[in-house]
């Protein structure tokens, strides 16, 4: 995935560097965000999804999913939650949210801003997470929490999406950076 056929060409080195850069940024946000204290346990803002959304115009599906997997595994290893039940929830929810956002971006490229994409991602993230929690603890009582998580996901999705709208619009359109190579 990382190294295409022309192994040590400039493009492959560049793509590896881009992968490392985005992975490190996402891991940093993931770890710093886990230091934030929110009044309710398990609630997180999901700020690392901003990185996922920023990659959507430039990179392909495999690259974005690869960044996500590296981010979750390394990030939870640093925080100290690797392979805990919380890790399973974060992985399942984040994976489905990433796929949702990629599909939403590809299908509705002209019609949706990052706000809508982020809303969809956050909503699916919480939906899958609560169902996974019910599967993990073998009891359906966690589903009672579903409405609260879903309403909260609309708030956090709006925060992330509007931030991404600002981030994606501001520096890129003014600076003339070379476009990163498009990767599959």
């Amino acid at each position: 995935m990382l190294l295409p056929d022309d192994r040590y060409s400039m493009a492959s080195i560049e793509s590896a560097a881009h992968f490392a850069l985005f992975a490190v940024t996402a891991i940093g946000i993931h770890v710093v965000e886990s230091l934030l204290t929110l009044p309710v346990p398990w609630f997180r803002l999901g700020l690392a999804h901003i990185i996922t959304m920023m990659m959507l115009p430039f990179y392909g599906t495999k690259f974005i999913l690869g960044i996500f997997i590296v981010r979750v595994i390394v990030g939870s290893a640093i925080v100290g939650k690797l392979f805990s039940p919380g890790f399973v929830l974060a992985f399942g929810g984040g994976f489905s949210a990433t796929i949702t956002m990629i599909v939403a971006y590809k299908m509705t490229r002209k019609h949706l801003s990052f706000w809508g994409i982020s809303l969809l991602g956050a909503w699916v993230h919480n939906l899958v997470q609560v169902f996974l929690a019910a599967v993990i603890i073998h009891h359906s009582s966690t589903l009672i929490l579903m409405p609260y998580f879903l309403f909260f996901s609309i708030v956090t999705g709006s925060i992330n999406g509007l931030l991404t709208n600002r981030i994606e619009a501001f520096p890129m359109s003014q600076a003339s950076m070379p476009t990163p190579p498009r990767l599959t």
Partner: protein
Amino acid sequence: MKNSTRTSGDFLKGHKTGFREAVTRWDWAILIILIFLSWLSLYIFHPFHVRSNCVWISAGGKTLGFYPLNQDRIIKASGPLGTTIIKIHNGEASILKAPCPHKFCQKMGPIPSHGDIMVCIPNRIIVEIKKRKGRETDAITR
């Protein structure tokens, strides 16, 4: 050199800067749809419309039995520490006496409605209010 490099300014020509320009009507549509679906989930997943009339008691991982909530009775369930006495009275279940050291299970009751649960971990007793149909077909499992 400059001709060969695409700039991201070209790439993002469709993107707008401010809130008003960036947000489209489809964003608002998705917001409204998701709020509606979340509100709907309040009715789908919340068990307030479920009326269950049985007390399910499990001792040591095995089902001791289902008991109707509307008949007053006293049930003795035996675990590794001794006998836990469970009382059903006025449509509520409560634990009267427990052999465990901290008596948390006594303080958890009385429980009247669907989904309420009392657990005694040292004595391995679970008391839950649920429907009689079976273990997996809970009304909120779909």
